[in-house]
């Protein structure tokens, strides 16, 4: 995660996404940098309005006007933000697949699931009609849809929530992507189905040596699936690093607060260490660190300018002026 993008598959640099009028821009994403290595699962965590989904969507230019995206998204030597639309279409849904939280709104309700998989195969592979049909069945089978052949002609509404998410994954996999973007893929699912889908994504990752960016608000999901984690707050990166290190010793006061907000075994009916207040509105961001008004470690310098993201340990960066105090805590 250093400055150069040597062995990264995807490098995002100084990503900014602004909404609202040019006179009063609202920065949903404000200067975000991260890399994804081949075969790596990167988690992006944060609460509502932290900019995690907007960050994910801007990678494939899925932000529509009046949203304005700037910065660089380097994918195999090319900047996706400036790529001509035609070339971008080969990357979007081809080299990079996407799955969303709500398969029912992402799938086309009037086309059969089989047709939607075949469409993607037609767009991104050289298979003929018979080959596409065969591959569609293979893909549905691969993502765990039982009786794949007979379900090929079913419509999305005939699938359960979990099966719809599997169908969406099958569509995304049709083009053999090297990177899968997953936006809260299990948030709408029951816990036993969530468990199945997350394990499916991990299995596919290792079988296809695919990288994954997983956006979620659930720290348990991060702990169970991701290699590295980026925590976002009010449009900025608060902390990035290996999941194990961040969970063992968070170096940003916000990460610590989030981890402590989750109930743990053995503290039954004890007050939780909650974070006071609520996330700021983008229109009313404080001058310095956006977390300062809620932060128990706040220093006077925190209120002056947003703290820079600095390396606090190998491959572990934090934008918290109290990161040293947190290391000792």
């Amino acid at each position, binding site marked *: 995660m250093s400055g150069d993008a040597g062995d990264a598959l995807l490098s995002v640099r100084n990503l900014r996404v602004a909404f609202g009028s040019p006179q009063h821009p609202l920065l949903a994403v404000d200067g975000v940098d991260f890399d994804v290595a081949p075969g790596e699962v990167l988690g992006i965590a944060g609460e509502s309005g932290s900019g995690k989904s907007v960050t994910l969507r801007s990678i494939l230019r899925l932000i529509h006007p009046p949203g304005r995206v700037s910065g660089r998204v380097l994918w195999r030597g090319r900047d996706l933000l400036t790529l001509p639309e035609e070339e971008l279409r080969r990357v979007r849904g081809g080299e990079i697949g996407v799955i969303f939280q709500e398969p029912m709104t992402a799938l086309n309700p009037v086309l059969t699931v089989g047709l939607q998989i075949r469409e993607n195969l037609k767009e991104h592979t050289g298979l003929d009609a018979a080959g596409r049909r065969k591959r569609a069945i293979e893909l549905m089978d691969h993502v765990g849809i039982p009786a794949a052949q007979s379900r090929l002609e079913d419509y999305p509404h005939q699938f359960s929530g979990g099966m719809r998410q599997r169908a969406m994954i099958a569509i995304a996999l049709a083009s053999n992507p090297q990177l899968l973007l997953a936006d809260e893929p299990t948030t709408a699912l029951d*816990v036993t189905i969530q468990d199945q889908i997350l394990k499916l994504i991990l299995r596919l990752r290792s079988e296809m040596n695919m990288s994954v960016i997983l956006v979620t608000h659930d720290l348990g999901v991060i*702990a*169970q699936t991701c290699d590295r984690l980026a925590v976002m707050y009010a449009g900025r990166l608060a902390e990035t690093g290996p999941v194990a290190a961040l969970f063992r010793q968070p170096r940003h006061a916000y990460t610590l607060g989030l981890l402590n*907000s989750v109930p743990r075994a053995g*503290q039954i009916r004890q007050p939780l260490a909650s974070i*006071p207040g609520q996330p700021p509105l983008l229109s009313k961001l404080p001058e310095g660190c956006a977390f300062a008004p809620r932060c128990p470690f706040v220093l006077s310098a925190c209120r002056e300018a947003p703290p820079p993201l600095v390396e606090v340990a190998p491959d572990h960066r934090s934008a918290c002026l109290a990161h040293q105090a947190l290391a000792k805590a």
Partner: protein
Amino acid sequence: MDAAAPLIDVTDLAMSFHRPRSVLDRLTGRPGRIVHALNGVSFTVMRGETLGVVGESGCGKSTLARCLVRLHQPEAGHIAYGGIDVLRLTGAERRAYHRRVQMVFQDPYSSLNPRMTVRQTLAEAIAFHDLRAGAEIGRRVEELLDLVRLPSDAAGRYPHEFSGGQRQRIGIARALAVEPECLIADELVSALDVSVQAQIVNLLLELQGRLGLTILFIAHDLRLVRHISHRVAVMYLGAIVELAETETLFTRPAHPYTAALLKAAPEMDPGRRSVIDAVRGELPSPLAIPAGCPFHPRCPYVMARCRAERPVLADREPGHIAACHLEPGHKL
């Protein structure tokens, strides 16, 4: 009243919903379909206790909550509250019951009147039950806002002016306005961000301590239920499959479904990962509940008996019941 007697005593509660017959059903002469939401649910809640109810979609947990506050009229079974037969209450007695047992909903945005200020919402509840009069009402509104930690200038504002967590506080204040003994909390914090969730959980624990509330805490989040409940009931397809003291249930589950739920809930420790699915298969539709044990199609320990005979809730150890044909003590 006898202190050892339960405050709420539910026996054999059953409730189903008739789905309207579609045109195709009529043409083919197929009978209308029935969703069996509750199939003989029995449990008790002691005064001052928090009973957690967990389960996945369609398990009947919300229907159960709605039956308790009589938003649904169950088809069979009894609900006794402090010895009173709740399902037969009418008129003034029914109103008195509604004052004692209050429900708080998941989405305060749709359960609060958007055209009423917080003061109007709270004052209406207080006045309806004749709990205060005149200037006393205003003082009580301030007291309530203080109780749920909202600033006193909140009284003049409308629901849309608040964040999700604050709206949930208003929902709680609205329920507390009528001085209830019991709160039915259906997915109270599910829609909130984790840092705000913790604030509301703390508030609930504190209020329970101060006001001696009895709470039925319905949620799908196992970590939350474990944190807040004295005892926990696990529901699956309209029935309770296991009920025990919280720590017993979480450390020594006796039903394979409980064990699967615990395994499926993502642990906060990145060092402990599993690659095998906690449980196979999908949740069956409540329109077609499997015969025998409803969990048998997904159960890793299924036996011939499970497909034929529905297990009944039986004692595993004192205070711990489970509905499973496996020998007690079978390793899950």
